[in-house]
């Protein structure tokens, strides 16, 4: 978390940054829908998180058609557009935990197998390889004490810092909040509108560059509104 308190009890925000290192998840790769059904039930939850949520911070070429790797595999390598669309709409942040995500995935695949049992054995043209990542976090030693500090800091953040505080934070904070909003709640200043603006970003469908742009825009809008004489 970015939140901390100084000696006087004032809430301060510690800006953190992170880097990911990807590794194989240690389970066999998948060549068919039937195999996918089996492996989804035993793969590490960390791997599901990687293939759904860490896609945002991974090197990628352009806007992918689908945000999670399972939907991409179904579309591109299994040639099953119906399955890809059903997997593609899954939003992991709307589920309470990763076990629920696993249940939903297994269910979607089961339904598809029931619809077309023979297709469950069709070989995909590329294997699906389960991966996961370790996240190394470090303190940038930058601290913020006011809304003004936050608005000034956001445009200067690295993409990975944006990822850590805005995306990855949902996993750490029970209320599925980003770190900025969680911290703003503790400030004496009136920041509800700012929190709402942050909450209104549909970040799952943005890449990190777009996400940062959206955050910066909110900062600018807030600053402009604050400057309007009353």
């Amino acid at each position, binding site marked *: 978390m970015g939140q901390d308190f100084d000696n006087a009890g004032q809430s301060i925000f510690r800006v953190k940054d992170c880097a990911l*290192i*990807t590794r*194989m998840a240690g389970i066999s790769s998948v060549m068919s829908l039937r195999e996918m059904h089996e492996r989804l039930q035993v793969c590490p939850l960390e791997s599901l998180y990687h293939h759904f949520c860490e896609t945002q911070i991974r*090197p990628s070429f*352009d806007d992918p058609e689908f945000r999670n790797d399972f939907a991409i595999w179904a579309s591109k390598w299994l040639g099953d557009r119906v399955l890809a669309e059903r997997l593609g709409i899954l939003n992991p942040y709307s589920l309470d935990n990763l076990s629920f995500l696993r249940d939903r995935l297994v269910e979607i695949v089961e339904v598809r197998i029931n619809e077309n049992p023979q297709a469950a054995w069709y070989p995909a043209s590329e*294997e699906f390889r389960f991966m996961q990542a370790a996240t190394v976090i470090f303190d940038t030693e930058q601290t913020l004490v006011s809304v003004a500090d936050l608005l000034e800091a956001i445009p200067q953040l690295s993409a990975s810092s944006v990822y850590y505080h805005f995306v990855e934070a949902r996993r750490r904070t029970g209320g599925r909040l980003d770190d900025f909003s969680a911290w703003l709640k503790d400030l004496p200043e009136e920041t509800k509108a700012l929190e709402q603006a942050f909450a209104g970003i549909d970040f799952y469908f943005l890449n990190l560059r777009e996400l940062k742009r959206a955050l910066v825009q909110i900062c600018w809008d807030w600053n402009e509104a604050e400057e309007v004489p009353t």
Partner: protein
Amino acid sequence: MIRTLQPYEQVVGPIVIGQLRQFARELSGARVVHVNSTRVGGGVAEILSWLIPLMCDLGIEASWEVIEGNDPFFQVTKSFHNGLQGVAVPLSNAMIKTYEETVAENAERLRTSLEEADFVFIHDPQPARLLELCPNRKGKWIWRCHIDASHPHRKIWKYLQSKVEGYDASIFSMPEFAQKLPHPQFLIAPSIDPLSEKNCPLPPREIASTLQRHNIPEDLPILAQISRFDRFKDPIGVIEAFKILAEVLDVRLIMAGGGATDDPEGAAVLEEVQDAAQGNSRIHVLLLPSDAHRTINALQRASTIVLQKSLQEGFGLTVTEAMWKGKPVIGGNVGGIRLQVHNYHTGFLVNTPEGAALRMRELLHRPELISRMGETAKFFVKDNFLLTRHLREYLTLMLALRHGMADHLFAA
């Protein structure tokens, strides 16, 4: 030349460089040794030549050792290399004896520094046996496989597996290359140095004089494949593609490459290429010395389209180099080339000489596509395949290993 991170700020920006310095704080003073089999020639040596000084600039005590061997040893390790890439090569007891004795001799020389190091990175199969010869090692040992080992020849892999399974971790360039091993297998793509002699900006007159020096007229569009003379790079296939294209378009082809001291097959392949090119004045076959980095840079910049029609490829740094220079690449549909070349975005993936000829013809008829793809290619490399990303991943890996592989860990 002392290389520091500071000049890279101009390329990647201060945020990226600041991140690296913050990441490296906890690793300050750590002793890191890299071992490979050649100091010149090939992508691994190039990566190590920038990685070591930059690690040092970050406060890490990094060093680079090279194992020494004679021709028979490198014949054996070339067999290992080919075997990992799926070629059915023999593995006799005599070959194993040659390999094991040579590595044992090297171990005598290197043991002290390797056993004392906090992290040891062993690159590719040649020095892999060093681990079992350093029983008192203190640090973490990582085997870094740069080769496309997606379908290794079973006999070769069985032998090598016994040498690498004792490592603390291994690194592969792509998930497809990973093998069943009892330790964590990390994924790190290689990278290029944008400020090296091979990739830095060049004045137009230097490009022109390089062409002049090699008797290459600037009268026609230039196609080029610039990589080691190696059968896996399919140089003969490139010449075939050129000949198909030359029936309908006037173009020139540069086939340029150097040798690596650990590649004894290079001379034979060069001869095959020269035979295939014989009698065609528009094919320019150049054998370049291993330090001809600026020449390679100039030839890539002089080209309209760059080819890397490999049949097997670990990653294909020549592809990255060409893309960084804003060139569309026609690449073999294999290995790491698939990570870099995306049809209609940064170039074309092809499977045959016919496919390569078709795509070259298409591009030469659509110059606007050449410049658009080139721009996209450069941007893509900047984001993903420059040394700063690579260095960050090495630092992250070392921190992850030091902290016992937790999914989330805080660096000091």
